[in-house]
């Protein structure tokens, strides 16, 4: 039997098997099942229809109110209440509504997901936790309901694509740029039904924040999951948070990859993805005459403290351009508090930016920064589909916190180098 990729090892482990091959069907035991205020209500409805009475394990379910919270209208408040009532009824350990934040930043930060875990969530960006060398993937509400009832989920073992980044990153280039570049190269279905395994010296050089950003956007290439190698940075992050044992896996040297891409990370400039697909990525220098109405720093891609520090570093002593709405959204309550203590919030406010409580908000065109027809935003979010941030005739350009903050100052898309 040939060696296994990281994803094959993780799935074999979760399925209690010695080995698996791409194409195998497995039933995996789940370490955690996630849903949010938008997907949980349907999952709860289906859970009841299944005749289930109790969740399989109250400590292995995470319900996070983040999409429309603080509740933006009566319907949203009703949805959140449905989830809250269910959490109380089932005595769910990880229910987050206050002192909460965006699910995909919150779960790793709280130590709820650990290396070696197998996680599904009723949210497509559940693939974020691959940064912890875990298997995680998004599902719909029905799969989530079945998993809450049984603690299991079936998977078809995917083929793996390996992405190797070597070389030294240019200034202002980070995880966001590497993943936008990757999607630009392979397309929004370039990894359809497949696993994306990352490696190379430039990946090990990234802090955890950048690795989460990269795995987060695996879904934007159609990927089933994204996964990062375990190293001393993973260990330091996890050991500061873990309250249970975890298992470390690494890919076999003779693992069988469907394809290996190797890129020189040192040749990549800050990237921006133009509307209306994340794969419309190009160097920031090619888009620098595009005027903007709004700049957003936040979302599960880039709402971490490291991201806010980068944005604050650029906004410090500068002013947001007249007529531009610059909205900063810390990813979680803890990050908000840290940003306040570090003086970042003051820097943002002095620069003329607005700081919101943690929420998905504008990322999905929900609230806190919805676009009108003809308006254009540069955002650190992960999707720029038609109508994603508001009106179907509005536009979203995806970029890193550095480019978003610099663009807020310039009033048009620009590189921090230009300031």
């Amino acid at each position, binding site marked *: 039997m040939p060696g296994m990729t990281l994803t094959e090892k993780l799935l074999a482990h979760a399925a209690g098997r010695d080995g698996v091959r791409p194409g195998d069907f497995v039933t995996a035991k789940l370490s955690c099942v996630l849903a949010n205020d938008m997907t949980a209500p349907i999952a709860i409805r289906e859970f009841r229809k299944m005749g289930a009475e109790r969740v399989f394990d109250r400590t292995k379910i995470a319900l996070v109110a983040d999409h429309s919270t603080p509740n933006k209208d009566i319907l949203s408040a009703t949805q959140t209440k449905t989830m809250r009532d269910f959490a109380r009824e089932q005595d769910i350990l990880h229910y987050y509504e206050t002192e909460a934040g965006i699910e995909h930043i919150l779960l790793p930060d709280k130590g709820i997901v650990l290396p070696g875990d197998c996680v599904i969530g009723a949210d497509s960006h559940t693939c974020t936790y691959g940064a912890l060398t875990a298997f995680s993937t998004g599902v719909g509400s029905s799969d989530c309901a079945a998993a809450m009832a049984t603690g299991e989920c079936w998977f078809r073992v995917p083929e793996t694509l390996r992405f190797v980044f070597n070389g030294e990153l240019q200034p202002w280039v980070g995880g966001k740029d590497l993943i936008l570049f990757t999607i630009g190269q392979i397309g929004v*279905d370039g990894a359809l039904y497949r696993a994306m395994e990352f490696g190379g010296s430039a990946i090990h050089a990234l802090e955890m924040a950048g690795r989460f950003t990269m795995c987060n956007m695996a879904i934007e290439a159609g990927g089933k999951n994204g996964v990062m190698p375990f190293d001393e940075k993973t260990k330091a992050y996890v050991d500061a948070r873990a309250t249970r044992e975890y298992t470390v896996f690494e890919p076999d040297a003779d693992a069988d990859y469907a394809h290996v891409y190797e890129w020189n990370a040192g040749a990549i400039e800050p990237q921006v993805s133009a509307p209306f697909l994340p794969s419309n990525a190009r160097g920031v220098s090619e888009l620098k005459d595009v005027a903007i109405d709004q700049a957003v720093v936040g979302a599960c891609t880039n709402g971490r403290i490291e991201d806010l520090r980068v944005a604050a570093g650029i906004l410090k002593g500068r002013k947001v351009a007249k007529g531009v709405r610059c909205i900063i959204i810390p990813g979680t309550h803890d990050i908000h508090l840290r940003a306040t203590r570090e003086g970042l919030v003051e820097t943002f406010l002095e620069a003329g930016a607005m700081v919101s409580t943690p929420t998905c908000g504008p990322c999905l065109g929900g609230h806190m920064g919805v676009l009108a027809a003809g308006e254009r935003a540069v955002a650190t979010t992960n999707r720029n589909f038609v109508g994603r941030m508001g009106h179907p005739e509005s536009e979203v350009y995806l970029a890193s916190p550095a480019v978003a903050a610099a663009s807020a100052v310039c009033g048009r898309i620009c590189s921090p180098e230009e300031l």
Partner: protein
Amino acid sequence: MAGHVHKYGDHVDTDVIIPARYLNTSDNAELAAHCMEDLDAEFITRVRPGDVIVAGVNFGCGSSREHAPIAIKECGVSCVIAKSFARIFYRNALNIGLPIVECAPLVDETEAGDEVEVDLAAGRARNLTKGTEYSFPPLVGPAAELVAAGGLVALVKARLPAG
């Protein structure tokens, strides 16, 4: 099942199938009323029970929202035929009992308004307007079990110990 075709291109994402601004409800009829709104505002006035959506690659990409296949099914669409599907949409559709078929040649040779007939069990689709016929491979493994059971709710219900 047979119906008229509504045709779309590649990468139809769940944000245009059902925009997030309508996701503050889980009411199926309300979701159906906004189906495809940001891609084709007329769709909802044209669609008739039994109609078929035909599209290119990566249909249903983007968010995990099960509201998307629910909206499509609820407005009467009998089947979605595409060159390929995004994987979460694929699972969701099977789970809720919205028939989906991967068949690239049919997509290439079918136009909006054509009448298409699909026989899932036989793995055969016919374009009645053009007089062409296509076959597609049957589902295998858990996907086939799901369809045979009538969706995920029924499947889990049968497996859970009676409470």
